[in-house]
């Protein structure tokens, strides 16, 4: 049992890394394997530049983003004990979007990342504050507060979109659907992803126990409140890290954890790292398709994640009696 899970984990890790590596070949121009090896060996030429300057960084960003989103969704589904939870449930993407869109219109693109951070940070703090005020937070309060805040912000975003000049509209919509064109790999996001993996391995059993409800989890000795804060801030931070770089890439955070649970892995110390690998691969593949399907036109990656994710999830739902009473 123990070894089976580890073996399955190694398989998934290896498979997802190789699939992602394979995606280097594809894009607006396909580069055959042989050429890739040759140019890597020689270290010069057009292909060398394309691979090291364009494709490789993009694949890294896509992989880390997908991993962060999937882990964030997974942890939030545990925190809220709700299968519909995803990284954007508290309105983080809406907060970031509002910041980015606002600054794009007023200041131009230079400051958009900073304002994205500010918007999202404001949402994280205010949702936690509102859900906490007057009473303890609990899944219901937290989820409803998040949904309300995000509904309010979305209305403001729609207002901005309607009032903004039509020339900017397309870029904004692209960004809101998730678009990795301008994303760059950053050290801190990789570090964040690693810390979340470590967190879920170390606190795996406590996270498992959360599914008994907070009262029972407390009674067997889980520091529920501390754990909840950790989950909330780690998962939110993961979502912010992705959104400010690549926009609100949807569907990965919602679907990937379910896909993995459906295949029989539910303990968090396996579930969360596996989510990271599968989520990462999904976004890399989606992004590669988005770059190459209608090349040279690039599609928003968020569209592709949904197009890949929906059929897989529906297939798995029919395979297994998943949502049993």
């Amino acid at each position, binding site marked *: 049992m123990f070894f089976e899970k580890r073996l399955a984990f190694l398989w998934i890790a290896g498979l997802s890394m190789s699939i992602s590596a394979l995606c280097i070949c594809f894009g607006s121009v396909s580069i055959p394997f042989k050429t890739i090896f040759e140019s890597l060996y020689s270290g010069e030429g057009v292909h060398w530049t394309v691979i090291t300057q364009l494709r490789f960084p993009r694949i890294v960003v896509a992989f880390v983003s997908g991993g962060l989103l999937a882990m964030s969704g997974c942890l939030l589904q545990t925190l809220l*004990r709700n299968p519909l939870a995803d990284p954007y449930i508290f309105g983080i993407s809406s907060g970031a979007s509002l910041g980015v869109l606002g600054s794009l219109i007023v200041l131009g693109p230079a400051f958009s990342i900073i304002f994205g951070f500010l918007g999202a940070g404001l949402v994280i703090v205010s949702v936690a504050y509102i859900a906490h005020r007057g009473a303890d937070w609990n899944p219901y309060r937290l989820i409803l507060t998040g949904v309300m805040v995000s509904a309010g912000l979305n209305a403001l975003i729609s207002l901005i979109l309607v009032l903004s000049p039509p020339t900017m509209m397309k870029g904004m919509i692209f960004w809101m659907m998730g678009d990795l064109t301008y994303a760059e790999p950053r050290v801190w996001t990789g570090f964040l992803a690693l810390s979340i993996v470590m967190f879920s*391995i*170390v606190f795996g*059993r*406590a996270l*498992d*126990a959360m*599914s*008994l*409800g907070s*009262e*029972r989890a*407390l*009674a*067997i*000795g*889980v*520091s529920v409140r501390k754990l909840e804060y950790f989950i909330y801030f780690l998962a939110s931070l993961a979502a912010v890290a992705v959104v400010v770089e690549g926009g609100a890439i949807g569907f990965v955070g919602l679907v990937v954890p379910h896909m993995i*649970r459906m295949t029989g892995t*539910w*303990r968090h110390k396996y579930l969360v790292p596996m989510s990271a690998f599968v989520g990462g691969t999904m976004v890399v593949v989606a992004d590669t398709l988005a770059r190459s399907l209608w090349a040279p036109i690039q599609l928003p990656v968020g569209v592709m994640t949904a197009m890949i994710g929906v059929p897989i999830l529906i297939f798995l739902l029919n395979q297994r009696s998943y949502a*049993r*009473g």
Partner: protein
Amino acid sequence: MLEVKNVNIDIGNRVVVSGVTVSVEFGQSWAIMGANGAGKSSLLRVFAGINKPSNGDVLFDGKSIHDFPKKSLAQKIGLLPQFEEHDYWGNVEEYVGLGGFSRSIGLWDKSDEDRVIIQEALEQFEMQNLRGRDYRSLSGGERQRARLASLMVQDPNLFLWDEPLENLDYSGRAKLLSWVAEMTKTAEKASMMVMHDINLANRFFTHSLMLFEDGTCLSGTSEDVLTVENLEALYRTQFDQVISQDGRLFLPRFR
């Protein structure tokens, strides 16, 4: 070991429990009784350190229970709440093993001692055949037995049970009650159980705590506390006392 001093519990503006003072020692087995909504579960949660009382102190070995780290408190006081969420994904054995969470250190999962006590708990509550089954596929009674077993695996010094007899059939009840009675007598353990059956309380429990609707309470040995007058005040129902081979029996007069 557990020292409850003048505990008040208010929920909203309503005084639910006022002035509860109880001292629980090793070897004692308490029945907690009261009408619906009298605050039995709230009181148990306060005893377990999950909620704080509006007033008063709860001490374990002379130290406030809120001063213990969560894990070490769970080794001293264990509560089985009346309800819990049922979206646990693992099988019965893993569910029961979660009771031993407070003994786990960091990455280490289960020690050999844990495996032994899990095995004992599964046997005690007749769950050996169900050990590999998904917890979520169990019936109500089977779930209840798995829950009882998980508290046994937690193995605290003070067991707090919130209506554990619900969902159990007669043999399940008898097994649980005689196990609790035996355990408190022989090991350094104590137990407090919320329940509604006066005759079981009279037969299996050394002490009783009654919570009245006006918030007051009465505690002492079951022999002293369980009288026709007190029961009539507690449940607002008339009772007859009958002497049988096994001692006293209380029969409610329904009319």
